[in-house]
């Protein structure tokens, strides 16, 4: 074992200190918006605005209370909105993982005529911004058949507006997720499939027993990249959900922007709805970093 001379050791220590200082500086920089949000949620509107010009904006000084949080509950059914967002997001992420991974598997592993064209079409869907197709989609979903329980009898009707499924189903199939899965699956050697086929496994067994267990990073990446837009949905539910009891959290943001904006309550509300996202991110931090590194995808 080589003995390092004290000068080199000191140099290495200095470098480490400097790198930590830079990292701490960056961490503080990125934490500022969150700190501002939380601290402002404890202040009255006038104080938030008057503190904006200096460091007091980031410190819990002055008239500090939980009044804004109480105000949020008076104005918005926040519990209901959170529950709705959890239902919609979990459904989109869960169903999306199954559907998109199966589609990716079919494109990358199965040999069938036209799969190249299908993959091109799937990729082409990424070019079209959602805003351009939102209104035609509203028309389509308003014409879709649905079953309803009425007077103890199952009846049918038309129109998916004002429902959970209208917030979930259009977002399960996702071109980017299909593309990402297909790319990741294509890195798994096909020899494994051939061996499994010889052992009598069908395609679904190969997908479920071999490909899925080997594709953890791809599933983690898709789950995270699907979670955020699903949680942040605003335009679509604004257009298709009329019943307040079915609205997700982001639509609730607009409740605070009246003739005058209740900034303290806005900050309290955003603190409350950011918390689940932070918890998910912090809980899955390792998986997120490793999956991004493994799949080579940036969010």
């Amino acid at each position, binding site marked *: 074992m080589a003995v390092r001379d004290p000068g080199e050791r000191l140099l290495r220590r200095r470098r480490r200190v400097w790198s930590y200082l830079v990292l701490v500086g960056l961490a503080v920089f990125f934490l500022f918006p969150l700190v501002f949000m939380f601290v402002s949620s404890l202040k009255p509107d*006038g104080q938030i605005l008057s503190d904006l010009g200096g460091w007091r904006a980031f410190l819990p000084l002055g008239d500090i209370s939980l009044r804004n949080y109480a105000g949020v509950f008076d104005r918005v059914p926040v519990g209901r909105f959170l529950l709705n967002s959890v239902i919609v997001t979990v459904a989109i992420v869960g169903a999306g993982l199954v559907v998109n991974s199966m589609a990716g598997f079919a494109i990358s592993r199965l040999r069938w005529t036209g799969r190249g064209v299908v993959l091109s079409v799937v990729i082409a869907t990424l070019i079209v911004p959602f805003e351009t197709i939102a*209104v035609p989609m509203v*028309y389509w979903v308003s014409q879709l058949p649905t079953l309803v329980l009425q007077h103890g*009898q199952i*009846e049918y*009707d038309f129109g998916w507006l004002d429902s959970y499924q209208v917030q979930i189903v259009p977002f399960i199939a996702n071109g980017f997720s299909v593309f990402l899965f297909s790319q990741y699956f294509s890195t798994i050697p096909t020899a494994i499939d051939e061996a499994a086929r010889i052992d009598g496994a069908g395609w679904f067994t190969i997908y479920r027993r071999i490909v899925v267990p080997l594709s953890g990073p791809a599933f983690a990446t898709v789950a995270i990249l699907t979670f955020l837009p699903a949680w942040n949905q605003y335009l679509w539910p604004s257009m298709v959900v009329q019943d307040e009891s079915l609205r997700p959290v982001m*639509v609730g943001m607009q409740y605070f*922007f009246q003739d005058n*904006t209740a900034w303290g309550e806005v900050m309290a509300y955003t603190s409350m709805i950011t918390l689940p996202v932070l918890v998910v991110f912090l809980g899955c931090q390792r998986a997120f970093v490793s999956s991004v590194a493994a799949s080579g995808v940036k969010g």
Partner: protein
Amino acid sequence: MKRKSLTVIVAAALSATVALGGCARASQDSSSSGGPGEITMWTHSAGNPGELAVYKRIIADFNASQHQYKIVQQNFPQGSYNDAITAAAAAHKLPCLLDMDGPVMPNWAWAGYLQPLGLPDSLINSLLPTTVGRYKNTVYSAGYWDAALSIFARKSVLDKNNIRIPTVDKPWTLDEFTAAVTTLKANGYPTPLDLGAADTGEWWSYAYSPMLQSAGGDLINRGTMKSADGALNGPGAVTFFTWFQQAFKNKWVDNAGPVGNQRFIDNKVALSYTGVWNAKDALAAVGSDLLVLPPVDFGKGPKIGGGSWQWGISAGCRNADGARAYLKFSFQDSYLTAFADSQVVIPSTASAAAASKYFSDNGALHQFAVLSQKFALARPATPGYPVISSTFEKAAKDIMNGAAVKSTLDTAVQAIDTDITSQNGYGF
């Protein structure tokens, strides 16, 4: 095993199809109203507990007063309300009763979203003119209140700077106003005036087009509604926008936030051009020193914007008689007064104003009712208004940022006229 699973799936799918074909359709009604006599009503008031409480009271009273109709209320946040209406119209799912911002009404009437309101003339005639939405001489909407803009000031500040306090009968002239802001800037207010220029969207047309009209310009030629040429780029418009640009250049005013009246309350600006909705807080902060001043006369008499949220009935409403019965019921003075006092807005009838805590003759905010009666001018009742408004906002912001006044206005006129031509004159 695999084949069995497949068989089960196919059988289940077939059963579902057969069941779907065999079961009855739940409702043949494509309107958004539910059961018989049920009338759906959409408001933009989600997140506004004061306003919702009054609606709740009206609906409860109406539903209890008869058994033929039942009003079902759904509330939307204001910011996403128009998106919801557009989407519902595309899906033919508009509710029977819907509220709308006054200047948008002609566009919705032209697009076929609305039917004539059909309320009795006696009721319509009792309302402030700016609370009644007319398109091509037909009433499509009516509102419970109007808003009004004014200039907030402190009496002590004007007295200290020897600035004349303007009255409704003798408002500030443009020269007087310019002299006042110059004096205030020289005496301790780095930016003496808050025009609310940090705000965006409809505020720009609502707040600044009355100044344009006061200077002799307009958003469009109201006689024909077919062109903005000569109105938005004529001499009056150039006069106003030249002053507007100068006001920012000389730092009499800026476009720094926050939106609202906080800078006036904190005494960081001496004059604040803002709305009645900020008056209650200003009164609480400034007390009897608060002055609610009339708008400036830019040459053709003072003007303020009129027309706030109003109610209409959708074209496809199957219970239009019920919707009318509800609206007629809802225009009782006691409800108008309740809206006025909870929202601090001007009631649409004189009798409701007389009963109001704020807007009666002795009320602290009575001046707003006077300003509304004397100076309010509705925005042009044309379906092209949304384009006019966004074009005006863009032009005004460009001028604020230093663009050449006349050529910017000419470009705006061209954009507005092109839109009108492309829509075959919007029926005018």
